[in-house]
């Protein structure tokens, strides 16, 4: 079963939920945790360990000056501005290229071939018994986050329990993360702010046919706004994490409540059971 932990915006505690859930599952038969926030992966901070690195190459064009007639076709085709055809050569801006392969197709002279270019890496580690951590890391200045997300998901495989930690927001990398997943846990705070962003995330999941539920984080006990939103959108509230001193203290020092506070490991395990039950109901 593959589930995504997402949030409409950053800072809602999405990573906390993924890390604690993974910890609880690692103690119960194993889990693969995938950091899909490739622009700023941080799950390895909770689970340090030796990792194995693999490059993520994407195809980019290489132009043979012997064959190129400087006809201009490729430059006019490329909607990303990665190719500029000058009077004496073709300029290629690698960091603008989206690897669509179009220039190869439109070149009438067969001057374009594809070569690989690394836009990021995927790190795999086994920081705890039962836990495999896969982190996608995009190289600085690159634009192809979805490719790195896809590579991380591929490295994690399809077997067993898989938790994808999505990047904040609802941009392309999140869509890539949601694709093919069985369920989406949306983490929100109990403030009225952020419900707009949550709404976008709910719609994205719905559009991809991924059922969703909500975890309310940092709850002060007055969650009416969030609860109303959930009932209006037919979203189950799967778990509520209170904003109390004990929880805050563990989180402030970068700890895991599932490991450091009594009772929380069980509660995160129950969260998974609840999600699994809902996936089955659907199937």
């Amino acid at each position, binding site marked *: 079963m593959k589930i995504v932990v997402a949030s409409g915006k950053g800072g809602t505690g999405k990573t906390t939920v993924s890390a604690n859930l993974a910890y609880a599952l690692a103690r119960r038969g194993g889990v693969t945790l995938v950091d899909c926030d490739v622009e700023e992966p941080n799950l390895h901070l909770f689970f340090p360990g030796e990792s194995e690195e693999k490059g993520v190459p994407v195809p980019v064009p290489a132009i043979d000056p012997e064959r190129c007639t400087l006809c201009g076709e490729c430059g006019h085709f490329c909607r990303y*501005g990665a190719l500029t055809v000058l009077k004496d050569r073709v300029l290629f801006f690698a960091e603008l290229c989206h690897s669509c392969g179009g220039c190869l197709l439109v070149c009438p002279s067969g001057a374009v071939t594809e070569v690989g270019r690394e836009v990021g890496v995927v790190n795999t580690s086994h920081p705890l018994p039962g836990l495999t951590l896969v982190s996608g890391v995009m190289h600085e200045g690159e634009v192809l986050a979805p490719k790195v997300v896809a590579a991380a998901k591929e490295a994690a495989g399809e077997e067993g329990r898989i938790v994808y930690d999505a990047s904040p927001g609802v941009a392309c990398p999140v869509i890539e993360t949601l694709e093919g997943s069985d369920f989406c846990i949306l983490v929100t705070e109990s403030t009225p702010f952020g419900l707009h962003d949550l709404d976008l995330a709910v719609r994205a999941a719905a559009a991809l046919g991924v059922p969703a539920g909500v975890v309310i984080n940092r709850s002060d006990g007055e969650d009416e706004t969030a609860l109303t939103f959930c009932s209006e959108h037919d979203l189950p509230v799967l778990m509520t994490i209170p904003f109390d001193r004990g929880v805050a203290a563990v989180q402030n020092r970068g700890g895991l409540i599932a490991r450091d506070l009594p009772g929380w490991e069980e509660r995160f395990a129950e969260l998974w059971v609840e999600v699994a039950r809902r996936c089955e109901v659907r199937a």
Partner: protein
Amino acid sequence: MIVCITAKGEGAEAAVEPRFGRAPYFIFADTDAGTFVSVKNELVDAAGGVGPRSAQVLVDHGATVLLTGQLGGNAATALKAAGIKVYSFGNAATVAQALEDYTQGDLSEIL
């Protein structure tokens, strides 16, 4: 010589536009013939790569000089590689005035 000026509208009397890649119009002035050709910039709302794509438009129109306000890094690389000289039009308000200032040698070269 063909001089390109970034503008908010069409023709020699149009107001200049300080942005290069997202300028609404490129005005190509042929200084020998004394003519102006206005080209609508299709990239105003494009997501990215507007700098090099705009540079391509200049190359296609045979411009060797660009008068504009500001430039992004990729645009600068492309224009430089294309051998197009870039000047800041400073205080000029219209296309005609910017061109006049350029011919008088009053503009500062930014690339």
